[in-house]
């Protein structure tokens, strides 16, 4: 059994399918209210800002900054025993919404509040991709 199989895998539903399918295809998709244009995440059936039900799905730029982060050292789930230490980040996307994710290929001491990141995608199944992030290089 791989570590990934032991962690919770998202369940694709009618509501959230564009998010997971989008990530499997390499795009970070967000819901955007057709009425008030507010972005929202995680997906919901109704806009919490204005109450409208009509929703569009739009690709996000994939860019954002680390709002906060932690490095999990103690594996409190059996599922993550072989993954520690791993980081969990709260990323504020350029569209203004925040997502929980992880930064790949980063030394723990490279993480910092305010650092820019860009989305990368791990394909779990043909229809589920998991948006993750990579540190953006300051000069690029």
């Amino acid at each position: 059994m791989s570590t990934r199989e032991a962690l919770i895998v998202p369940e694709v539903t009618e509501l959230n399918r564009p998010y997971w399918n989008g990530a499997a295809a390499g795009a970070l998709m967000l819901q955007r209210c057709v009425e008030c244009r507010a972005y929202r995440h995680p997906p919901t059936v109704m806009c919490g800002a204005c109450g409208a039900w009509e929703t569009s799905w739009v690709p996000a730029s994939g860019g954002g900054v680390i709002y906060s982060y932690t490095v999990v050292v103690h594996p409190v789930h059996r599922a993550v025993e072989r993954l520690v230490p791993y980081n969990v980040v709260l990323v504020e996307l350029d569209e203004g919404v925040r997502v929980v994710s992880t930064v790949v290929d980063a030394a723990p001491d490279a993480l910092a509040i305010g650092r820019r990141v860009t989305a990368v995608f791990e394909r779990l199944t043909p229809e589920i991709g998991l948006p993750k992030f990579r540190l953006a290089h300051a000069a690029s």
Partner: protein
Amino acid sequence: MRQGQPVGLRRVAMVGAVGLRVGTYGATPEHELLVPVLAEALRRARLSHRDVDGMVFTHPRPYCRQRYFSTHIQSYLRTPMSFVLEVVGNGMTGGQAFRQAADAVASGRVDVCVVLGVSRESHVPTAEHMAETSSKAVGDVDFHTPFGINPLTWLALAAQRYLVDYGGSTEMFAEVAVKNRRHAALNPLAHLVNPLTRADVLGSRLIADPLRLLDCPPRDDGAVAIVLVPEERAGEFTDRPVLLKGYGEYHSGTHMLNDRPGNLLAFPAIERASSAAYAMAGVTAADIDVAEIYAPTTNMELIVAEGLGLFPKGRAGAATLDGETALDGHVPICTSGGCQSRGHPPLVTPLYNIVEVFQQLRDEADRRQVPNARLALTTSELGLMDAILVEIFESGD
């Protein structure tokens, strides 16, 4: 905001509050932990089991063997009642049980209502608890948990912001643990009582950066019984009642984090619920003599204390280093020893907080007594401060 006591409701008094020493009780089942505590609370309030009109229970964990728990316990008493209820409120389960019982007394539905809580954790390995219960319970199961997040991870995200936004230090977190351990050493209900230094905390292993083992609570068992009556009848049961003066409740509409979760150091739930409680009690934060804060990790004690207005934003850490939140400080916080040292049986931690202020306001806290304590505040919360309950109590003698 509504000011003063609600019109048309009876005032509520606490006349008994008893807790089992927090710790690990092995194979002892929930009902056997709870019933002796119930019996002792009734005895101390000069009540027979036949006098109980109503009971409100914390709903047990999913791994409790005994189903229909409240019915089962009521059958121990062989007493008919008009009001029996089990309450679920995640981290504020105990606080919600207390509020339901208080509301039942205030409305006149019942006269003698007992709040009963039992939280049995230690027989389930932490990994199993986290994987099967907590991790799914503390965030969006599809959008948060696939990243290996757990209850402590969320609190660590707030801790990082405390360090960066306020120029805080892990010494501040460590001092919360040290101070709480000193308090616990004076509390017969506390689990962990051996002396602790800042170096011990800072040298303990990392759990989720920057939180270390000794910033975190142990997993504990516990049981509490609290007897509530209308204030006008309190004298029948004790000459030192503790009065519920105010309360506030606020649910912010987030689940750990939503799309725009705002500032992880200034949660609207804390500020709104405490403002409501102060207004109802007719007091301000400056009037509070002792505060029992529901804070699983050390950093959250600082963040909640600031949200309650006990300290300006970003100042609770330095105040803790200066001893201001210790027993002899000007705002003693978690005189019980708090979640880290008194212990943290989550379903009933809110009730242990109330037991502590019951003792403080009756001048029964012995060597950890805050001199002349008249007004006390308690909190409980769920998620990442998604919702919070605040109660304010006054000494009634």
